[in-house]
């Protein structure tokens, strides 16, 4: 058997491979949500007064909001009082370097295939590893520090760079933005903070790896990326969770701020536990991601490969405020079994000569439902705005659904906006062609799907692209016939 076949064999015989969990001593908040819990979290993290006030304000707003119901997804209501809002692995003291990090925690990440050990890599990716509610370790800090790049956990940033955090926190996603963003603002535990100073091109990929381990907890992380003038950064995000019967909530907020001539590339490979074949368990992924191209000639590019989660509700968006700014959104969303995804983007053109591009590829199999929901808005002053959107859906199996809800709101006569979408299934002739050449149907499907998604996968950094391709094949395993 050739090596390729071995890999395929390996992939197709696997189910969710990250479904294990590890028992470690954890420091947990009691279940429930009230002001005391928020104070408790804030105190635990030794936060300054202003941040606690900010959280409480968000919490009070959240209490008056109601859960959004417009998305094309159905799921049992989340009982916010039954969740634990904080869970942290117990460590004696804050580790100064990797050697002091509990080896057990490092082992968790080793098992996920993420090396936190810098020596083992000659060059590569700086990782901020987040386990449940706290950041475990951040690698390559010193190397980055020499360039003036700040890359650390959110709680560290609050302590060490309060002026930056204070300035940008909530500037892109206001705490009152939506139900889950408000909830996140109230209870967020940790996340990554990244600041690229003027004129610096970040020499390596920055990455955050999220892992939910504890049961009955929600993960509420917050990522804030600030790219100052003429800087560049490519940022990766990965996530996995153990296989559990109950649904777990993940409600993150990602904010990106790009000053003039800055460029930020944000890639996600989302592989939360999707639930089992009967649709039991899985993560509810309710995420708010938004970037603002605040300065002229800035650029924000979102790339996402969504394969996991029982329910996904996620719209990475760009506010194109600066003149000549560019927003991009590339997405592959795969749903299988009983997964539901309602995902897309918003491109808000405010500045003149702004451009945006949307490429969304949905693949639905099994009994899953996959929706694209996007908005392209051209404001009155956004002269010469240009948008191109393409959203294609591929259907596999007669019990799944693909839906498209594109909103296009144009308020300027010089705008050029195009939207096109197609929905179809994999052609029998294509499969037949592969079969004829000795490629089994399932492999043929993986091949065709990868080809279909190539336009998006090409946007991913090398290492992620390989992982994403494998994931695609894996997620669709058993969906043929």
């Amino acid at each position, binding site marked *: 058997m050739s090596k390729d076949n071995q890999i395929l064999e390996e992939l197709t015989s696997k189910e969710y491979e990250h479904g294990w969990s590890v028992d470690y001593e954890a420091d947990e908040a009691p279940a429930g949500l009230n002001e005391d819990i928020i104070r408790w979290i804030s105190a635990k993290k030794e936060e300054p007064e202003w941040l606690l006030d900010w959280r409480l304000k968000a919490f009070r707003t959240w209490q008056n909001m109601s859960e959004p119901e*417009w998305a094309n997804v159905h799921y049992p209501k989340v009982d916010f009082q039954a969740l634990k809002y904080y869970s942290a692995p117990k460590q004696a003291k804050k580790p100064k370097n990797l050697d002091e990090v509990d080896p057990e925690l490092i082992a968790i990440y080793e098992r996920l295939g993420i090396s936190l050990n810098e020596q083992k890599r000659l060059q590569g990716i700086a990782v901020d590893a987040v386990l449940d509610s706290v950041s475990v370790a951040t690698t390559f800090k010193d190397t980055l520090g020499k360039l003036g790049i700040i890359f650390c956990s959110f709680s560290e940033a609050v302590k060490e760079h309060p002026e930056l955090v204070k300035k940008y926190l909530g500037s892109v996603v206001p705490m009152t933005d939506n139900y889950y963003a408000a909830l996140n603002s109230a209870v967020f535990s940790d996340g990554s903070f990244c600041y690229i100073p003027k004129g610096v091109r970040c020499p390596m990929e920055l990455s955050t790896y999220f892992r939910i381990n504890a049961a009955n907890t929600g993960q509420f992380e917050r990522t804030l990326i600030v790219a100052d003038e003429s800087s560049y950064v490519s940022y990766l995000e990965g996530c996995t969770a153990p296989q559990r019967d109950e649904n777990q909530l993940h409600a993150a907020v990602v904010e990106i701020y790009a000053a003039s001539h800055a460029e930020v590339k944000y890639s996600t490979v989302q592989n939360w536990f999707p639930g089992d074949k009967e649709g039991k368990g899985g993560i509810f992924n309710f995420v708010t991601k938004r970037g603002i191209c605040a300065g002229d000639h800035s650029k924000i590019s979102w790339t996402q490969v969504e394969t996991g989660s029982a329910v996904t509700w996620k719209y990475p968006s760009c506010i194109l405020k600066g003149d000549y700014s560019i927003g991009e959104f590339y997405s592959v969303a795969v749903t299988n079994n009983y997964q539901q995804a309602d995902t897309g983007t918003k491109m808000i053109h405010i500045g003149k000569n702004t451009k945006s591009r949307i490429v969304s590829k949905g693949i639905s199999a099994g009994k899953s439902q996959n929706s694209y929901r996007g908005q392209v808005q*051209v404001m*009155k002053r956004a002269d010469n705005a240009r948008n191109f959107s393409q959203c294609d*859906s591929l*259907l*596999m*199996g*007669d*019990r*799944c*659904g*693909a*839906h*498209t*809800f*594109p*909103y*296009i*709101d*144009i*308020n*300027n*006569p*010089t*705008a*050029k*906006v*195009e*939207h*096109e*979408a*197609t*929905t*179809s*299934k994999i052609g029998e002739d294509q499969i037949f062609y592969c079969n004829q050449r000795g490629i089994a149907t399932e492999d043929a499907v993986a091949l065709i799907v990868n080809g279909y998604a190539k336009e998006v996968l090409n946007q991913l950094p090398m290492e992620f692209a390989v992982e994403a391709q494998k994931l695609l094949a894996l997620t669709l395993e058993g969906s043929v016939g």
Partner: protein
Amino acid sequence: MSTLTQQDTFQGLFAAAPENFLSIRTLGKESFLSQGLPAVKAEEYKFTNLSKKLENAIKSFSPALSFEITDSQVKSALFDGFEGDVLVFVNGLFLPELSSSIEGIEVAKLSEKPEAALGSIAKASKDPFAALNQASFADGIFISVPKKANIEKPILLLSFNKENVGQVIQPRIWIEVGDFAEVTFLDQSISLNDSSYFINKVVEIKGGVNSQINYYRLQNESKNTIEVSNIETDIQKDAKFTSVNISLSGDMVRNNLSLNLLGSNSEGNMFGVYLLNGKTHVDNHTNVDHTIPHAESNELYKGILADQSRGVFNGKIFVRQDAQKTNAFQQNNNILLSEDAIVNTKPQLEIWADDVKCSHGCTVGQLDEEALFYLQARGIDKTSAKGLLLYAFAGEVLEKIEEESFRNHVVNLIQERLGSKF
């Protein structure tokens, strides 16, 4: 809460409703009261705030009454070259005495046809305005085309509207077309004065096996007309339905056009042009429901928007789980001519079957500068060159109108508008 959602405002309408179709009316009233007028953020009426519009323009509602009209008025309203039969309406009420009697077709007032299954196609539960009409329409028309009838001449549904502020015109049209029958309807309304009245129209069309139905509609009423229409069609196996909707004027116009493909190999076509200026607001909501395998639908809407006009398009293609081998296409193109014009478009696909070919596309842009330059370089002045290009843009839809006199009429209106205004 808007005052219009309160029962009192509509009491006048409900009280004046005739005592026929009792159970149907009760159902409509219940459905209306439970839905209320669309709230500000209601998804279906997101960009078209009819509740506010009605509240500002009309204080309380009462039904529009019939008025006198002469034969010569009818004759002068007909467009050049029209050779067909005319059914005349005043304020939505059918006038048999001025209408032609059409050979081979049964035409009657709805009040004489208590067996009509009103509301079975355009369901009251789907739209509050359809429900309001169902509860309180005064009278309407019943048209039945028998099996295998091939009606060669077009049938013009000609409405004269004249009302004071606050009156509601509620036309109700029931059309049934038998198996293998062919028929073409033209629908045009004429405003006899400029006051802001409210038209709330419901048309239900039931197409039999292998029937062929064309429904061409021209909306060119006074600048102050507020209009909502619900036109819904059911067609069976091998049948074909084509709708062309031309909107040229009005204050706020909302068209709900729905098509249910109930038999295999059926075909639905929906075409439209909206050419707007001033403050006209036109909202086209279309809905194609593919319930069975092997059916096809095509949709093309084109909009040209000048001044402070607003065009809203929401096209929904619904492919049910059993509707395998569906082909559905949808396209919406818009040209914005002024800084204050707005387009909101949402071509929506909901697909629950896998073996389908569906596509949709939409564009918003402006005239091609190069084409404009090309024409100008050949001695055509800018206004005419623009008019020519815009006419060509709309032409793709206009040529779908198979009835020649009506097509020429529409083309003339559009050319006139493009020549003078744009």
